[in-house]
């Protein structure tokens, strides 16, 4: 990533006033701000988005799954995740998948080190917020029935076994599998959204459906909080996407604009589809569309045009709607808050459309078939390969992690009575509202 970054930077040299390896205050300001923005997405944005959609008896448990996952995943990231993801492995065959343990506890990194034009310490924190939101996304599929202890064990293992290697493969620099292949994933369509969304589905199937699903009415505690969460996600996502330009540069400007366009178009699209299909547009629908649009544009954000952003956003919303309304009913899995339906599917759509729609502009593109030889079909095949590899790794890794966590905690699922009474009261001894 650093290498790619430097390459990118080089293009702008005539524009920027600094030479490589110097700290640029504007880039540093933007990357620190981006870190704070992405941080906000999990314990505030996603937690409210998910918490609001949960039945009132499980709201605090849902919030705790997100917030607890966040703090644990950050710790895991510092201890070893960063090293596996962004370290360099001496063995070339291992380097395809793992960065090794050279930077465990950030060993070998000093506060004066730079990643391009800003401190590596900031890069570490920025990437840590990505690691943490990814596993938190998965929680949405399994709320209301999983033991909190099992979930915590899953979070710890998954960060090391699934997230870090996938990040390494895609963004790990020279020698990393999909990085070398030239996969385009601007801000984490594969790494974050497909990954987290698919992990959610796998866990949902393994842990089983909530009692009474889908017969029993499972009404959301507060759509208002869900909508507020979606708004905070949108806000934070500017750090996610425009921050993935690794500086306050023109590419960040592209990501900022395409993110705005795709998201607005997606929110509108979901609303309109609902209006046609169910005769009523819902606030939950607008919020869902917004998130689907944000997910879809993530891999494409720095690569596509204004028109491309519209296509990615609208399509992300259509496919998300299909995932949530049609697919889930068809296959009868209980992807409770639609981590799979929205994050995986819209992330997949975005990752593939990045191959189709990426501007053939040498200054924007990353290394890959499209940049090197204008080979769009080849680029699309690389995108296909990358979604395939990521999906496979996530699938296998998540199954393994689940069974270990389940064994360690004496079964992954709460008993029927606990589920009936609600996890807030039984697992946490708290109640969502005391009027």
């Amino acid at each position, binding site marked *: 990533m650093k290498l790619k970054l430097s390459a990118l930077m080089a293009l702008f040299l005539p524009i920027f006033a600094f030479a490589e390896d110097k700290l640029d205050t504007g880039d540093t300001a933007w990357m620190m701000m981006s870190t704070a923005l992405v941080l906000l997405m999990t314990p505030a944005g996603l937690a409210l988005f998910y918490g609001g959609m949960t039945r009132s008896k499980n709201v605090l448990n849902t919030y705790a799954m997100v917030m607890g996952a966040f703090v644990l995943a950050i710790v895991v990231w510092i201890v070893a995740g960063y090293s596996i993801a962004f370290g360099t492995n001496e063995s070339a065959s291992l380097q395809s998948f793992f960065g090794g343990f050279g930077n465990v506890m950030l060993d070998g990194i000093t506060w004066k080190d730079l990643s391009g034009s800003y401190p590596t310490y900031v890069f570490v924190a920025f990437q840590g917020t990505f690691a943490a939101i990814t596993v938190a996304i998965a929680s949405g599929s399994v709320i209301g029935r999983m033991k909190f202890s099992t979930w915590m064990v899953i979070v710890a293992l998954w960060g090391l076994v699934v997230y870090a290697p996938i990040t390494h493969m895609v963004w790990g620099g020279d020698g990393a599998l999909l990085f070398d292949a030239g996969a385009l994933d601007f801000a984490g369509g594969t790494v974050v959204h497909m990954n987290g969304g698919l992990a959610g589905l796998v866990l949902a199937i393994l842990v089983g459906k909530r009692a009474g699903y889908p017969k029993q009415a499972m*009404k959301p505690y507060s*759509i208002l909080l869900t909508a507020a969460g979606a708004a905070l996600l949108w806000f934070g996502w500017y750090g996610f996407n425009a921050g993935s330009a690794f500086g306050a540069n023109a590419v960040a400007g592209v990501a900022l604009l395409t993110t705005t366009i795709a998201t607005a178009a997606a929110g509108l699209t979901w609303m309109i589809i609902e209006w046609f299909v169910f005769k009523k547009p819902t606030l939950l629908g607008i919020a869902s569309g917004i998130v689907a649009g944000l997910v879809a544009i993530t891999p494409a954000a720095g690569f596509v045009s204004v028109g491309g952003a519209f296509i990615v956003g609208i399509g992300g919303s259509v496919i998300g709607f299909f995932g949530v*309304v049609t697919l889930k009913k068809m296959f009868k899995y209980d992807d409770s808050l*639609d981590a799979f339906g929205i994050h995986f599917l819209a992330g997949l759509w975005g990752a593939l459309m990045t191959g189709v729609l990426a501007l053939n502009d040498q200054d924007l593109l990353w290394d890959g078939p499209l940049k090197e030889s204008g080979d769009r079909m080849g680029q699309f095949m690389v995108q296909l390969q990358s979604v395939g590899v990521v999906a496979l790794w996530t699938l296998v890794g998540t199954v393994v992690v689940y069974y270990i966590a389940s064994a360690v905690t004496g079964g992954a699922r709460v008993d029927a009575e606990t589920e009936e009474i609600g996890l807030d009261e039984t697992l946490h001894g708290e109640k969502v509202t005391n009027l």
Partner: protein
Amino acid sequence: MKKIEAVIKPFKLEDVKDALVEAGIEGMTVSEVKGYGRQQGHSELYRGAEYVVEFIPKIKIEIVVSSDEYVDIAIKAIQENAKTGKIGDGKIFVSDISKVIRIRTDEEDAEAL
């Protein structure tokens, strides 16, 4: 003494209360309840899952009065002010009360009302 319980549409509460007070009935206790009956519920929609809400929000008014005369007055006030003519207007139930006490003063029965 008699107790009158009336289940009415929530937005009629203000009118009914005013009419009762005007008719000289100055005490009552109300609670939020949900009713099931002929009135159709509505449906809620969350990401494509449609839930029919069969229980409809209603208000229950409880009034204890000392004489049959007051029972008639109260019923009249409720009937006239809670009626919209549409299904779901609600019901009035009358039953017996054998004793009433005002906690503050220890007064009993008619005096306590």
